[in-house]
């Protein structure tokens, strides 16, 4: 892994074309193994810089740790995860992507890799999640991650959803086309 300075967020959003398909593959520790060209382009990092780096190289300080904690605990339980994440590009700009994370196992049933299939997110979803994520971040900064997790659970209870439902409901229905694309991409990657 190279030692890199993480840029300060500029607050500028990188717009991603609707049909752009992005994926990244990490090992069990979360270090990047490979990425799609589109991921390099959007993040502004070269393939060399990305491969071998922990995936949080693109972690945006606006993201609540609560989400990553829940994500990792689900993945370790062998559950696939959907999540919407704001990421930080090398130049400090940011981009929002929704990810579906697939678990890749070897012949012994041990997890070897995680593959994250990403696609752009509707503006309405970003608006909604920005408010929730800000609350979560403020709560975990003041009271710790456990408080963040409790709060998120309460929020989901009240809205009668799982986090996964929240993500799905945040995506617009026309994204069904994109889901089809994700499926195609999955097949291509898995070949």
């Amino acid at each position, binding site marked *: 892994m190279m030692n890199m300075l993480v840029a300060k967020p500029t607050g500028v959003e990188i717009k991603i074309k609707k049909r752009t398909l992005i994926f990244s593959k990490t090992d069990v520790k979360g270090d990047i193994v490979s990425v799609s060209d589109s991921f390099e382009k959007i993040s502004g990092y070269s393939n060399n810089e990305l491969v071998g780096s922990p995936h949080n190289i693109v972690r945006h300080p606006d993201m609540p740790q609560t989400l990553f904690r829940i994500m990792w605990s689900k993945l370790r339980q062998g559950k696939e995860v959907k999540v919407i994440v704001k990421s930080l590009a090398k130049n400090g700009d940011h981009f929002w992507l929704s990810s579906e994370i697939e678990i890749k196992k070897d012949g012994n049933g041990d997890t070897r890799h995680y593959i994250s299939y990403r696609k752009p997110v509707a503006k309405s979803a970003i608006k909604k999640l920005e408010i929730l994520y800000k*609350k979560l971040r*403020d*709560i975990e*900064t*003041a*009271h710790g991650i456990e*408080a963040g997790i*409790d*709060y998120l*659970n*309460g*929020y989901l*209870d*009240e*809205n*009668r959803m799982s986090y996964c439902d929240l993500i799905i409901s945040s995506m617009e229905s026309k994204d069904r086309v994109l889901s089809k694309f994700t499926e195609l991409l999955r097949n291509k990657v898995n070949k």
Partner: protein
Amino acid sequence: MIKPVPTGVEIKLNPKKYIVSKTDRKGKIVYVNDYFSEISKYNEVELVGAPHNIVRHPDMPKIVFKIMWNSIQNNRNITAVVKNLAKDGKHYWIITDFDIQKDANNEIKNYVAYRWAVSPKIVKKIEPLYKKLVEIEQTQGDEESENYLNNFLEEKNMSYQQFIENIAKPTKASEILLNSVKKLFS
């Protein structure tokens, strides 16, 4: 934290909205809905981790909380009428109801409280009693205040719960609404 000074100004609640909060076993807040923040004027960061008495109004007699707490700790839901204090010193009257959530070992894990607006008519009925109880509490102590309430209820041959239900019987519509909100959390 410095307690706000009551201004005597009442906040009018939207009768269609519920104030929801979730606390742990000890009464520490873990979740509040948007309406809770909006009315109490505390934001989520201030509320999460705080004991629920952050919104306790000095006009509330301690005995009411004792009855409430005893009941839910013993796994019995209770309805209570409470005057709460917002951060800006204004107050709001609510009627509250609980949902007791348990873990896999049947131990109490969380309490979810649902509160909705009470009509001024109900407030008028209960305010003089609370006033009297606080007065006794301050001049003669908690025990005397408790005795007074017990005598008051004995005379009516009712428990606190029955007394509240009697004066604040929820309308059919509000009951349906409450039940649907509760389903979300069960």
